[in-house]
């Protein structure tokens, strides 16, 4: 029969051979006959009315297809949640680089000059470019008050704790925008013919999001829109909602011209025009007792959503639910809002609000520790959630998570105590100061609350006549291992060799809607449905007497051949069923927010070079409890990659804004870490299982984004005794703090390590 335990072993990446031989087909590798190339004419101002549009006579415009909002057959919007974002601006623009017109031409080289030859007159309006400006409400750019969304979470009686508090600790924390920087830029090809409707091939995460958006934009029914995901070169959330925009643009050009149209952004356009991580500001006010135990507090969390609502409400939701960290809050009031500014809308990026609010929580725990006079380790021990306790949304922790044990293990793996001692000695001399810092955190997997119920995911598994099993899902592979893991589940469920299972390219005419590939839900939730659907195949064959228990591969093949000869196809579907005890109140924002939390403790070791004020991460320990490791090599790769991105978030990646427009929109000036910048990232797992996940899996893709930044900033504090509360933390910031003492706050209990 087959080798046991395909799940849990590092089977090779299903599409891996194509990737290492250069055979994998990304959208720009595809060319269709008669294809045109498309480009976008974008706003050069942050906010204003669109006036006259002139086309310079130096261009032979008859060679070009020109599309404006007037050419939109359906609704001029990118259908998502509130549908407030236009596909093409018609009367007014609300952010720099907002799309206004589309051009297409057979020669892609002719497009740039044509774009530059369209002159648009604007009547500028006042624009706002920060959370504070938005809150002032002197200029209203969205709704009645610039507030895209707000939440209020209340637990217990917060107002009563202040008088009992031994200390009231306040803090304000900031995180900046971050560019996803997938190495493959956004791109699509769209084609239209009256029989099939619109077809789009693209670099994307969520084929059915694009499908829904195109139906609304083009005024077409479900069966006249087809979306196919091509091999996708990185996404990280940056291709969750944005592809609906670029797909809409290509579709409009295809509709107007009757020819296929390819739009591929270059790096400069992708960086300046597409979504980024929401910048955030968190304010904590916490009542603690003499021992540093949290009695209660208030958390105000605000994110900058940019000019349109897009996904801000959902990012805000996750940020809200994670704002309290892995700690027990007897009572709390969490007030959160997403505000509008005149910048391209911010969007999904790995972590999706949690890296922002968790950064604040972890930094704030260190502040509490300092005020109370205990160590960062001890303050966490005294506040960790325990099984049976409730989270800030009053979800009962049902699993046997032991955060003390996790912390102990992380401290041991990182040699924390010995290093702290050694650094204290070594830091007495020289310009290079070493420090070590920790972060403890959690990440809920799957859609929040009733979200999974709403998604109502459907998964298919098919058996072909030759016995090949084919997984049918809309879940996209973009490096994180979807193809591999889902095939592992199917193979294990059917007791077949891994190589006998394949996965269909996500094509909305072929695969059912298994939901978007986001929220670290694929292994856990979609995987479980793949298992069920696979089992359904077996049941069908055994029920019809074609297969007996303990079958061999050859017997399976024969059974499939027979069944298909009689019935033409052999397919089995499984639909999501919400677990019985997962109850969520959308109005009070209370209850079981997620079916499962993954937990982690990370430890960062840094060197601060006082000659250059640069921070280098020397060592990194990432210990996480992930339910069950489905594929060790892939799981480790996800953690390592996420930690690397988070190191970028903490130290390297800064978006420079000028009137709402990204100034440093080139890889030479937006700096992500390279091979010489990252420490050895040491990954360790703990496995508690998960009743709600396939083979006990919990989501792991986003978790590693949450912890590194606060761990690093804490390590810097340990090294030089200056506490920073804003990221990215760059050498220039360290320099200013050390030489001005107004930016950072000196909180070190001792004077060691000061420059």
């Amino acid at each position: 029969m087959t080798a046991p335990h395909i799940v849990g072993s590092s089977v090779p990446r299903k599409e891996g051979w194509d990737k290492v031989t250069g055979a994998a087909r990304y959208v720009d590798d595809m060319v269709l006959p008669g294809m045109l190339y498309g480009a976008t004419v974008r706003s050069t101002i942050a906010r204003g009315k669109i006036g006259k549009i002139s086309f310079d006579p130096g261009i032979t415009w008859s060679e070009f297809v020109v599309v404006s909002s007037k050419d939109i057959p359906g609704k001029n919007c990118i259908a998502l949640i509130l549908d407030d974002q236009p596909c093409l601006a018609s009367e007014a623009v609300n952010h720099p680089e907002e799309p206004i017109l589309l051009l297409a031409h057979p020669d892609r080289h002719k497009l740039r000059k044509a774009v530059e030859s369209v002159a648009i007159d604007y009547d500028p309006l006042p624009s706002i470019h920060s959370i504070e400006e938005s809150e002032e409400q002197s200029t209203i750019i969205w709704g009645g008050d610039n507030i895209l969304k707000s939440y209020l979470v209340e637990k217990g009686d917060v107002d009563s704790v202040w008088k009992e508090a031994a200390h009231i600790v306040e803090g304000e924390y900031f995180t900046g925008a971050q560019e996803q920087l997938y190495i493959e830029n956004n791109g699509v090809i769209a084609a239209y013919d009256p029989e099939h409707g619109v077809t789009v091939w693209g670099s994307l995460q969520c084929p059915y999001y694009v499908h829904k958006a195109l139906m609304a934009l083009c005024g077409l029914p479900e069966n006249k829109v087809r979306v196919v995901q091509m091999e996708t070169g990185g996404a990280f959330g940056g291709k969750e909602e944005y592809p609906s925009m670029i797909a809409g643009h290509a579709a409009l050009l295809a509709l107007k011209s009757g020819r296929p149209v390819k739009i591929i952004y270059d790096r400069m356009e992708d960086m300046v025009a597409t979504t980024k991580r929401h910048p955030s500001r968190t304010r904590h006010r916490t009542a603690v007792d003499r021992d540093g135990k949290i009695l209660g507090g208030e958390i105000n969390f605000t994110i900058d959503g940019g000019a349109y609502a897009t996904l801000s409400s959902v990012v805000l939701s996750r940020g809200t639910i994670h704002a309290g960290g892995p700690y027990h809050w007897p009572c709390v009031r969490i007030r959160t809002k997403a505000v509008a500014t005149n910048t391209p809308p911010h969007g999904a990026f790995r972590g999706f609000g949690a890296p922002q609010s968790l950064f604040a929580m972890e930094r704030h725990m260190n502040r509490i520790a300092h005020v109370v006079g205990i160590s960062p380790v001890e303050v966490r021990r005294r506040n960790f959630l325990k099984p049976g306790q409730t989270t800030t949304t009053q979800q009962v922790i049902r699993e046997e998570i032991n955060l003390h044990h996790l912390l102990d293990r992380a401290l041991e793996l990182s040699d924390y105590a010995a290093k702290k001692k050694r650094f204290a000695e070594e830091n007495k001399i020289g310009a290079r100061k070493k420090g070590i810092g920790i972060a403890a955190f959690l990440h809920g997997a799957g859609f929040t609350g009733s979200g999974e119920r709403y998604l109502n995911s459907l998964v298919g598994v098919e058996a072909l006549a030759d016995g090949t099993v084919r997984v049918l899902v809309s879940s996209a592979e973009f490096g994180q291992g979807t193809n591999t893991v889902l095939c592992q589940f199917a193979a294990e469920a059917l007791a077949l060799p891994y190589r006998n299972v394949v996965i269909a390219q996500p094509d909305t005419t072929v695969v059912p809607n298994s939901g978007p590939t986001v929220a670290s839900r694929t292994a856990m939730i979609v995987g479980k449905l793949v298992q069920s659907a696979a089992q359904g195949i077996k049941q069908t064959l055994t029920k019809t007497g074609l297969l007996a228990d303990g079958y061999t591969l050859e017997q399976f093949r024969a059974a499939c051949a027979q069944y298909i000869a009689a019935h033409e196809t052999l397919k089995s579907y499984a639909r999501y069923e919400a677990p019985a005890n997962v109850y969520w109140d959308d109005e009070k924002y209370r209850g079981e927010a997620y079916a499962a939390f993954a937990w982690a403790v990370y430890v960062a070791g840094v060197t601060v070079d006082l000659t250059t004020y640069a921070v280098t991460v020397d060592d990194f320990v990432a210990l996480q409890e992930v339910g069950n490791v489905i594929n060790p090599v892939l799981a480790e790769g996800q953690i390592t990659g996420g930690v690397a991105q988070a190191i970028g978030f903490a130290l390297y990646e800064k978006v420079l804004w000028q009137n709402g427009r990204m100034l440093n929109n080139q890889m030479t000036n937006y700096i992500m870490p390279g091979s010489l910048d990252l420490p050895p990232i040491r990954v360790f797992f703990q496995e508690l299982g998960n009743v709600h996940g396939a083979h006990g899996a919990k989501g792991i893709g986003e978790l590693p984004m949450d912890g590194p930044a606060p761990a690093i900033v804490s390590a810097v504090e340990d090294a030089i005794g200056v506490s920073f509360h804003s990221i990215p933390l760059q050498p220039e910031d360290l320099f200013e703090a050390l030489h001005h003492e107004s930016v950072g706050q000196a909180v070190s209990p001792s004077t060691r390590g000061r420059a």
Partner: protein
Amino acid sequence: MNPSKETAAKCEVSFTVNGEKKKVLAHPMERLLDVLRNELKLTGTKEGCGEGECGSCSILLDGMLVNSCLVPVAQASGASMITIEGIPAHDLLKSLQEAFLECGGAQCGICTPGMILAAVHLLEKTPDPALADIREGLAGNLCRCTGYMQIFEAVSKAAPRRAAK
């Protein structure tokens, strides 16, 4: 190539790619990357940035690792080039592909062709690289997915001789 003044016309450029002689008609300032992808349909070489920062477009040109997005095709006249598609013919290079697969060196795969070419170049110069050599050899190739660790492992695994500790 004509020695005197050209109009902005296309010209014939000959070179060898993956062991095969090729002749293209292109504007001299066409990027080698675009000629490989669009004229020769060798789409394994990728564009990530167009500014020579990410290394996704790396190929071997006369045995040297170069960023093909920064080479005008006219300068490739008479050159011998290897792209990711040319690799199966080479022993060392196949072992790199296998090592990448085994160690998880490729996730989304878009940086992978350039990364493997850079690794080929490194291993040809330094058959027994230490970790520091690997880091330096790949410093011009950005990967957003892996955090590099499993790429280093893969290169180490594929190296013909293990580095002295």
